[in-house]
């Protein structure tokens, strides 16, 4: 018996992701890229350090 396909529901919240230093060509939001990209190219500890310095005091 053929199983009915389960429809995927996007449960993730729609979030703002605007990079002020991104190329202007990437103006429209791209779709989510999954968890694999969560840490890709982003260095967590540097983020924390930079933020602590620049920010936000």
């Amino acid at each position, binding site marked *: 018996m053929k199983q009915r396909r389960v429809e995927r529901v996007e449960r993730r919240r729609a*979030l703002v*992701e605007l990079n002020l230093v991104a190329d202007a060509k990437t103006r429209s939001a791209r779709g989510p890229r999954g968890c694999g990209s969560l840490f890709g190219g*982003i*260095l*967590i*500890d540097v983020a*924390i*350090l930079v*933020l602590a310095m*620049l920010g936000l005091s």
Partner: protein
Amino acid sequence: MRSGAAQLPDASFAAGKVIDPPAVGNALKQLLARTEVSQTHASVAVSDSIATFRVLDVPLDETDQQITVAVAKEMTLDPERIATRWVTVSTGEGRRRVYAAAWDRAALKACTDAVKQAGVDAAVVELKSAAIARTVQEPSCVVLDLAANPAELVLLDRSTPHTWHSFPLANGAGEGLAETLAGPIQSVVRFHRRTPRSTFREDSPILISAEQAVPQQALNQLSALTGLPVRVLGQPPRVPPNVRHSTYLACLGLIMRRSS
């Protein structure tokens, strides 16, 4: 995960703006060395004081070009001095929700120059409010940062920053705190509730991030004055005490980005 924080030299940084990029860069370089961080790419959250932002709901069939025109009309700013960019946040019910930001080019350059001076490339730079919005579970709320000087608040609706506001706290977190906070919060909330498609409700909370303990009495008073529930964001475990809570949240928000 390593983390750290440091004081900046006097007069190198004020009210969210980098005044002296080499001085800030050198301090950052020393901090990186001290915490043994050797990576050369970074995500950076910058103060909302260098920018302004708007959320627009536009018909789904509007072209990108039409949206760019609408954003320019909404933010009538000098394009020589101010850069503008927008992104689509969501689509639904025949509308497209757009978040547009405009920022001072020179102020942003001062931030990126400081990072560069430290030998680090800023791959992502975003506003602190956008980073914090990603970390908060409540879709509609006011996040209040009492550790910042001046104090800052951001109103989120559908997990999107709508309004950012800063105001001085004359007595720190002492006498009359509830009264001091109620004014700015009420005006921001009232203004937002009048906007079309606002989903900010009477049970949307005020979330407070503070370095010092806020007395329960002040929280109760603030709730009574604003008519909104008030909660203090708990200090996360395993974060060094010198890393402020709102700084921690902003960093977490940077890490939670789905795109680079």
